[in-house]
């Protein structure tokens, strides 16, 4: 079969693999979002709101205490004792509880590390929907959006209420990174930061100071910068992806070292003169030739100065060539600028 003989080159295969990963991921997201995976219980605010129940009919402490509380099974039974009489056990209201604990509590609740005086917000005259947006239409408690700092801060700002960290976070654990900072965050944080502070998770300055940027970008090397990296590996990597180097390195990094330290392959028999030797790589420096890098080597420093009466403007090769009117050069003429060494 022809299809079995199909052979992809390496790049096409890589592109295909990337495509497959994308499709697989999209499939996972769609599958999860499709609701095919369902829990064994649901609680619908919408059904109860349609019965014209108020929030405090179930959340009885919502306007009385800082902890609004969740309904107990007893409160539910006031109505459900009759409603559930004919239902199987798994559909009775008791199935929403584990002991006395309501099972679906996770998404809307703020964590214990966050101070949230519910009563104070009620007393300020806020409607429930100011924080619990669209709760009256919610059909599954686990689909309630979690409270987000953006919303809190926007509301505080709108009302001229203190908006500093300690307003809600009594302690700030400097050792604990936000949940967003896991996994590939290092690789994407630049683009997220650049997006601008339109979401609290993007607001680097909430925790970081400005010098932190340079502390990483300028003073801290990556962990793969080993001794081998210093001697060889960096050249291989730079030739693969110079953009990576530009993340931290300034333009002059290469030339600063390589002006004094030639690449490791620059041994005595490296290439052949006029071919790969010097000009093979240093084409842009052709006018300067080897002296662009090697003028500081010891042997070059020993080059005698030009004789009296000779100026840099003179063409040395006019006379100092075999058969010329002056002594020929005591070394191979590799085309360099004589003035680089003979000062």
């Amino acid at each position, binding site marked *: 079969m022809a299809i079995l003989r199909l052979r992809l080159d390496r790049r096409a295969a890589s592109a295909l693999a990337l495509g497959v990963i994308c499709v697989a991921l999209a499939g996972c997201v769609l599958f999860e979002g499709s609701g095919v995976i369902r829990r064994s219980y649901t609680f619908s605010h919408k059904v109860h709101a349609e019965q014209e129940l108020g929030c405090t009919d179930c959340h009885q402490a919502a306007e009385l205490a800082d902890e609004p509380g969740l309904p107990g099974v007893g409160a539910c039974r006031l109505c459900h004792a009759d409603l559930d009489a004919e239902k199987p056990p798994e559909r009775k209201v008791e199935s929403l509880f584990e002991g006395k604990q309501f099972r679906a509590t996770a998404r809307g609740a703020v964590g214990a590390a966050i101070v949230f005086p519910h009563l104070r917000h009620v007393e300020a005259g806020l409607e429930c929907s100011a924080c619990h947006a669209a709760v009256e239409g919610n059909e599954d408690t686990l689909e309630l959006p979690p409270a987000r700092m953006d919303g809190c801060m926007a509301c505080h700002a709108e009302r001229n209420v203190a908006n500093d960290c300690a307003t809600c976070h009594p302690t700030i654990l400097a050792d604990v990174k936000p949940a967003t900072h896991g996994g590939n965050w290092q690789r994407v944080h630049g683009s997220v930061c650049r997006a601008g502070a339109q979401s609290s998770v993007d607001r680097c300055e909430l925790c970081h100071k400005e010098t932190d940027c340079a502390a990483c970008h300028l003073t801290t090397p990556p962990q793969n910068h080993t001794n081998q990296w210093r001697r060889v590996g960096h050249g*291989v990597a730079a030739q693969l992806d110079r953009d990576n180097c530009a993340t931290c390195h300034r333009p002059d990094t290469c030339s600063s070292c390589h002006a004094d330290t030639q690449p490791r392959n620059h041994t005595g028999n490296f290439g052949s003169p006029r071919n790969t030797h010097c000009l093979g790589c240093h084409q842009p420096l052709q006018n300067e030739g080897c002296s662009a890098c090697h003028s500081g080597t010891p042997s070059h420093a020993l080059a005698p100065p030009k004789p009296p009466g000779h100026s840099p403007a003179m063409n040395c090769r006019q006379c100092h060539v075999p058969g010329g009117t002056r002594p020929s050069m005591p070394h191979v003429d590799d085309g360099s600028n004589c003035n680089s060494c003979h000062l």
Partner: protein
Amino acid sequence: MIFAGAWACRSTPPPGASDPKPPADRAAVLEPDAQPALVAAPDSAAVEGPVSATTAEPETRSGTESSLEPGTESVTESAAASGTEPADATPALAPADVTPALAPLDAPPVAHEDEALAIHGYLLGRWRLRRSGDAHDQDAYGVLAVDVGDAESDRLTAHFLARLSVDLDGQGDAESQQVFGSLQDTYGDSAHLDLYEASLGFDRPFDAPVRVRAGRQIDYATPEFAHFDGLRVESHPLGDAKIVAGAYGGVPVRLYDATSIGDQIAGAWTEAQPWKGGRVRADWMYVHQEAETSDFNDDLVALSLWQRVGTQLLLDAGYARLEEEDRDVRLRATWNEGDGDLLVQASWYRLLNPQADFAYEFDPFYATLQQYEPFDEYRLLVSKALSDDLRLDLGGNLRQLDESEDESRLNHGYERAFATLILTDIGARGLDFSLTGDTWDSDEQDIRTWGADLTWSPNTTWRASAGSSYALYKFDVAQGLERDDVRVWYMRVRRKVGTAWTFQIAYDYEDDDFDDYHQIRAEATWRF
């Protein structure tokens, strides 16, 4: 990476939303090593190191022959740090008084002018001994970072970052110099000071609605990083669209260049948030550079667009034009679900025209790596928390040169793939393990790496880790293929004392095809 609030005004709170907290309590500043490390970038195209900076990598920054010679501890610590610290962890920088500053809802705004400026920063001292056979090297480093004030609320701010490098045993013998010679040695002095930042910022000088910063500074928001000695002015946001404009100018800073005499950098930009979730920015950058062979007068204009869709999707696009020729274009989508539960980023970048012989800021490596040929690069990153104690990171790049004949020793198309598996709290709380693999493949050069790391941090004061990494480089040295293997073993222990002091000692053993190396590093950091 923009620290918008630190300098800029994107997140400037409205009048009155100021911070009533006493300055001493404004210490929610992450330590340099509390944040995963390195290789961060103005855009993610440059974020990945050849070995992914993950937990599996050792902190063997010995002998870095770069401007990145040791500074603060790179973090990349365990993935456990990504929000999996014990819930009862001692707050490292918690205010002494943990009573929440709960202002009444109708509390009047608190003025800031009367408050003393908050000063934060750190002082780091590091000693490093390296030995390989008879060759040896002993260095010391000091890093001082100071941030004064808060750009969001204070009228006066200042930033300072400098590093002192001292070669304790001099250049040593020829062998030592050959083995351990580094960028720092090019100065010829045994001690050298790198000044990265030293600037003063003023908000509303003469009550003008602008911010001004003078001195040595870095602007990460410009199309190419602008590191310069000079002046920067930025307006306050104007109107509902939060229109901001700014300009800067000065002398570019090139820490390893012999001289910047005659060089100039200048630019102007404007940005706005004209619709919900959207931000647009236009930049103009100009660099004048006086080089030995020729002078450069290069202009770059760039347009950028960011759009946040809902709370989870971020789209961004950019286009740049250099010297009246299209330079590059990029598109990127980032999906961040469940505050890190799932992170996906897909991007496309295209270099539109060959890049050669521009001012350093626009074409950093031309002199060494020669012309940069047009290419397309596709990138995909995925990070998924599979459970409370298991996370998987995957990613891949595909770079394709427009013309296969452009492929050369210094310019490659390549495929790259990497994966990291992170297990937290394995068997004991605070015991984490990670495994990372990374591969780059091109026609002439390949790099393969893998590494594993085991970190135990029973609490926030102690942390010990050990691991190993392996890298294989296959490349063409003029003729034929060469293989270099490098294996690193490492162990390190960190101890925090109180909220101010951190001590660390580390040992690395590295074995490669040329030599083996021993390195001991000890450091102390004082934060204030």
